[in-house]
């Protein structure tokens, strides 16, 4: 809740930034077209690795990297790739970056790699990346694609972090591994279970919808 309110307060600031096309592309992904809350894309990782804030952050970073890089590369190559095989080529490009990230994470921290499991590899099939490649990078300049990828990636990370911290605080009484709740706090085991992921995301969507409805009524 607090995160969202904070973001709402910042909206005026974002609007000012939004006058520049590059920053506009950037802001759009963060808030207005947030890939998780608004476009409802990339559900698998947002639910699967968001049982702790740390996993969520790592996943978010990895996705942002892949998204930005692939956006840039695809934008560079957009005039060379024939239309018929574009999707296959995009996937190939994305898969290359994902493989890189996968091995990087493994090198940095084996534990993290273990807890993220196959989901790093599954970034390949995250609909956000492909949809940005198809909808944006293949039609726009390198610079704009970069900012679009960065914005979308950070928006994704923000959403993941929201879900992850809510689930971690209520489900384990901690945030990023540090205990934030008193000792006697009764942990809600459900929040770290799969069902908790569904419920948390649903609850956040409900809040989003509520504000959207309120806005449309006003």
């Amino acid at each position: 809740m607090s995160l969202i309110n904070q973001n709402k307060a910042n909206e005026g600031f974002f609007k000012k930034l939004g006058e520049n096309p590059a920053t506009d592309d950037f802001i759009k992904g963060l808030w207005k077209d947030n890939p998780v809350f608004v476009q409802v894309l990339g559900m698998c990782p947002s639910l699967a690795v968001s049982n702790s804030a740390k996993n969520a952050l790592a996943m978010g970073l990895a996705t942002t990297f892949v998204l930005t890089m692939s956006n840039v590369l695809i934008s560079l190559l957009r005039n060379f790739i024939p239309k018929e095989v574009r999707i296959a080529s995009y996937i190939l490009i994305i898969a290359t970056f994902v493989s890189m990230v996968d091995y990087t994470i493994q090198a940095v921290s084996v534990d993290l790699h273990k807890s993220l499991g196959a989901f790093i590899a599954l970034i390949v099939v995250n609909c956000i990346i492909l949809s940005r490649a198809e909808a944006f990078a293949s039609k726009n300049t390198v610079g704009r694609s970069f900012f679009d990828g960065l914005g979308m990636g950070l928006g994704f990370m923000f959403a993941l972090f929201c879900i992850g911290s809510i689930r971690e605080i209520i489900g384990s009484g901690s945030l990023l591994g540090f205990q934030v709740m008193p000792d006697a706090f009764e942990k809600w085991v459900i929040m770290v279970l799969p069902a908790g992921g569904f419920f948390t995301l649903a609850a956040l969507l409900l809040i989003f919808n509520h504000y959207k409805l309120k806005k449309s009524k006003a």
Partner: protein
Amino acid sequence: MNQESLMTIFINASLINNFVLAYFLGICPFLGVSGRVGTASKMGAAVTFVMVISSVCAFGINMLLVAVNAPFLQLISYIVVIASTVQLVEMFVKKASPALFKALGIFLPLITTNCAVLAIALLQTSKGYDIFQSITFALGGGAGFTLALVLMAGLREQLEFSEVAGVAKGTAIVLLVAGILSLSFMGFAGLGG
């Protein structure tokens, strides 16, 4: 080599660790194409079919990669194989049965980006399944996916005739129902250990 029995693998993949409700794999089609029981079961069948094919392909590719000592190409080759398989299937269906294509065609590109299919390939490799175990795993995963999809579709058909509260319309209610389904699938945890 993994020594799990085929039965265990199947039950594990389909019920206990249901791909959708426990592993969150294939959520996108789960949310997208679970409106009608008919389409859901077709989608489930299509996914299961692709899963089995890609499982077999992935098994072969993996053997090849291990032979040439290039396991770092795993991910990239899997995705390429799956993407092309799906595209071939799509073309074949479009030609062979336009009616089926109309019903199924829109899902096929979706399957390419269905993490469940890729996950089958990746998981079977990491678990070290042999060819029969792999196929069983793919069948189980597909069955679990289909089961979740069909259950969801059945519930959504009922929801269609409900007065769902305004804020919950759309994805939110589906996620909530999925959460409740996931809760009930936890009951299977006692099965087979």
